[in-house]
């Protein structure tokens, strides 16, 4: 177990370093400069040079990269056109645009993304897995067809359509739900949930299709396993057979996929955040890319990569807990 963890953590850090280097290089390969974006079309070459200097972009790439990495681990001093700023570890630099520390940007936007994702996951795991399992048990019936058909229908609408329609119906026309907004959970849990309800429903319904189909297929396969027949031959009731024997085995691969999905979503759900005007990580990242705002791009990319890598490790460890046949090593 410990050996597995050390091995995987080493691999994870290597992955993150590699991703940071690639992102950095990619940024400088773009035939544009943040200075142009910041100072506008009619900018004199001198002014551009000035801006580039103030952002530290006139330094060699290697120097910029090592400065960035140094900042992450021990902090650094940033000379912003004469203004000296102390940036403590973990320093992700200052936003080229707003000049605020990138850590502040993350601190502000990450809770929003987490709130959206956690709630939406709760929706699509319960709705998706629930529908899929029921559909498998009632395979071939009207319920099966309607449930799977409806979930595919929702999935094909996509967030921008379903989100827009729900906004129109539930917020603008009827006022049943408040306009989506973010209130920290610690401040007012009810308002937190109220403001998040619409993104949860939208993202949740759209993703439940995948989980419904997946769990239906898994369950149908598991129901044909020999050990399910054994359970029935013992004289167990169908309820116990389905829950304790079939579901337990069918759900394992679904948990794996859910874990990896969670990692991916925590890196930002750009479209959902944009449709509901919530400034989560995804929206910050998209904005930073179009602004060529390197420090924010680096931070959001690395954060997203971190979530995916971390969730993969967690899922692997979880698998060993769920399935006694799996030994980590």
């Amino acid at each position, binding site marked *: 177990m410990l050996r597995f963890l050390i091995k995987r953590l080493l691999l994870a850090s290597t992955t993150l370093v590699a991703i940071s280097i690639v992102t950095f290089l990619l940024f400088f390969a773009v035939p544009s400069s943040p200075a142009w974006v910041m100072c506008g079309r009619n900018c004199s070459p001198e002014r551009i040079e000035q801006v580039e200097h103030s952002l530290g972009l006139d330094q060699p790439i290697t120097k910029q990269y090592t400065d960035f990495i140094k900042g992450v681990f021990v902090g650094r001093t940033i000379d912003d056109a004469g203004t000296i700023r102390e940036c403590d570890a973990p320093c992700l630099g200052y936003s080229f645009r707003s000049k605020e520390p990138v850590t502040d940007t993350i601190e502000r936007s990450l809770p929003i993304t987490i709130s959206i994702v956690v709630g939406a996951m709760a929706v699509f795991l319960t709705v998706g897995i629930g529908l899929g399992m029921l559909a498998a048990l009632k395979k071939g019936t009207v319920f099966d067809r309607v449930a799977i058909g409806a979930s595919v229908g929702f999935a094909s609408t996509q967030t921008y359509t379903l989100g827009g329609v729900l906004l129109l119906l539930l917020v603008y026309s009827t006022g049943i739900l408040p306009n989506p907004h973010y209130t920290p959970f610690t401040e007012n849990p009810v308002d937190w949930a109220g403001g998040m309800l619409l993104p949860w429903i939208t993202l949740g319904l759209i993703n439940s299709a995948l989980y419904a189909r997946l769990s239906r297929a898994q369950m149908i396969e598991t129901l044909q396993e020999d*050990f399910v027949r*054994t359970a029935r*031959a013992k*004289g167990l009731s169908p309820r116990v057979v389905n829950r304790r024997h079939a579901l*337990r085995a069918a759900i394992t691969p679904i948990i794996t996929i859910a874990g990896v999905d969670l990692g991916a979503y925590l890196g930002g759900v750009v479209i959902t955040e944009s449709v509901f005007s919530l400034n989560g990580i995804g929206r910050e990242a998209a904005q930073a890319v179009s602004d060529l705002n390197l420090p924010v791009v680096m931070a959001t990319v690395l954060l997203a990569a971190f979530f995916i890598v971390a969730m993969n490790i967690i899922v692997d460890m979880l698998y060993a807990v769920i399935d006694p*046949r799996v030994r980590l090593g």
Partner: protein
Amino acid sequence: MTTSTSPAAAAVDPEAYLQVRDLKVQFPTEDGLVRAVDGVSFSVRRGQTLGIVGESGSGKSVTSMSILGLHNPARTKITGEISIGGQNIVGMKEEKIQKLRGKDVAMIFQDPLSALHPYYKVGVQIAEAYKVHHPSASKKEAATRAVDMLDRVGIPQPQRRANQYPHEFSGGMRQRAMIAMALVNDPALVIADEPTTALDVTVQAQILELLEDLQREFQSAIIMITHDLGVVSQVADDVLVMYAGRPVETGSVEQIMKRPQHPYTWGLLASVPSLHGDASVDLVPIKGNPPSLINLPTGCSFNPRCRYAGQNGNLSFSEVPELRSAGEDGHNVACHMSFETRQRLYAEDIAHAGVAQ
């Protein structure tokens, strides 16, 4: 044909614990009606063992599944009678069959690795089988009972083994655990579906011996389903040979092994190596494959594979042979050839190979 006039049905012992009369199991599919079992009758007394022999697709496993009522009633048509301790389970309510399953009738499955749940400890799985029919038993009692059973079936250190998962057991130990689970409620009838097929030959003998010991101890009726006549000769009292869902020969183990009458039984015997016969004689496989159960050959369904088809005029190709007395009491065979022809052919072609004894 009614059950009372069928010789096989007439041979059903009215005293027996399990009585199966003219059982038919059919699965309607998109391709047509699958006649998996087509008119089988047999009976097993407590303390006795019936061997059901046949190739894959002969209907032997379908028969055993229907004795446990495990077929999905929505997709299966079952007619005839399956009487377990006096109760006919054909058409019985699922909730009532559930009470019989695992308690009065238990099943030992072929491949214990896939038949045991991979995520639960062996002891827990056995305890669950006990608890479902003893709801008043405490968890601890059920667990103790599980350990006792593991001990009974010859698993060393049962306390420790009960806390392990199936994948931590060897093949033979796993099958012992499976047997422990089947016997945990002292069932009157045990169906063993190819219980030794997945095991080493040396372990096979141990498992068969164990089953015999346990049968003596519990006086249970056993149905041994197998394609291996060696297994049958070792454990069975009576034998039912099935082909394409129909019984082709029934009799005592001695009658079937020593004086077989049906060419299919001859084929099965000739394809098993014998210690007693001529060592230089090659094994003779039965040519061809079992037929599709949707589209059976007309006449005797064995005719495309039978060396002797057509011996008795055109009957093999036009008429389905009924089970008829093969001479001795309790020995029945479904073959168009006359008794004399069969005797002659057996003496000429088969006997010298010294088929498995």
